[in-house]
């Protein structure tokens, strides 16, 4: 599985270390809440809400530089909108690698 990286963030920050630290701190704080909301939506089996949570998490995936995983999440979001959970396992694996990554920041 593709790993989180700093490609996007470094390109965006172009040497501004203070902004990089600030952005990473925001991601570290915001990601667990977004994952929690996703899990709650899954428990309530509310597919439009789950799709909305996946939509929001896609941005975090892209901030952490994972292009392939972004497309995987995009397909999962589309499946949810069509009433299917197809791709859930792969998506939740992405959430786990992101969680592991930000915990070590």
């Amino acid at each position: 599985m593709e790993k989180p990286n700093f490609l996007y963030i470094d390109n965006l920050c172009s040497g501004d270390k203070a902004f990089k630290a600030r952005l990473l701190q925001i991601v570290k704080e915001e990601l667990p809440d977004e994952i929690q909301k996703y899990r709650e939506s899954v428990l309530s089996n509310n597919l439009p809400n789950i799709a909305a949570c996946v939509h929001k998490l896609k941005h975090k995936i892209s901030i952490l530089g994972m292009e392939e995983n972004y497309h995987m999440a995009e397909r999962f979001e589309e499946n949810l909108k069509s009433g299917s959970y197809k791709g859930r396992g792969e998506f939740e694996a992405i959430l786990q690698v992101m969680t592991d990554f930000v915990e070590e920041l």
Partner: protein
Amino acid sequence: MKCIVVDDESASRAIISHLCSQIDYLELIAEFPNAMEAFKYLNKNKVDLIFLDIHMPDFTGFDFIDTLKSPPKIILTTSDRDLAIEAFEYDCIVDYLVKPLELPRFERAIQRAVKTESVPKVNTPDTKEKKDEKKELYVNIDRRLIKIDFEKIFLIEAKGDYILIKTSEKNYTVHSTLKKIEEKLPDHLFLKIHRSYIINFTRIIDIEDNSVLIEKDVVPISRSNRPELMRRLNLL
């Protein structure tokens, strides 16, 4: 150029703020995590440009634009590529940026905002006439534009950020609002009878007290919408 950002994600607001700081003539004067706070701010303050997220809880970016009397120039910022068609319906939207945002594309959007003369959209009698002439509606589902004949639609129900369009053949779940679809529907067929329901009133089977039976669905009629429904019916 004075601008604000409306986005429920802190990370997005931070990124847009950082990108704005790279452009000399842009002055980011406020950031808002939701549309309601931005709306209150805009009632008292004038801005030239809004960076607006589409997907926000309670109030979508499009709903937000619809509430503004005289919207400034708007750049949509979203992770959703599928709403570009809807965005083109608004004259105030000068560009559509897909997240994650990067400086070169961001700069092009700003240049477009500087060059574009924003013209407030007015719902003229002409546009209303064109709406009534059309026989079908195209909806965006899974990146496909699907044609639905107006006559086949019997009910449209609001479902949070989505609407459920029920036809005699099948149902369609579409990312939109009742307000948006109401603008596209011909008045001689459709009527909003409740804040969550629009019906094709030619398909009513019967009306009892405060509800309508339409196909197999029983739909509530709100007190305020009932007089208009009764006016439209050919009562004996």
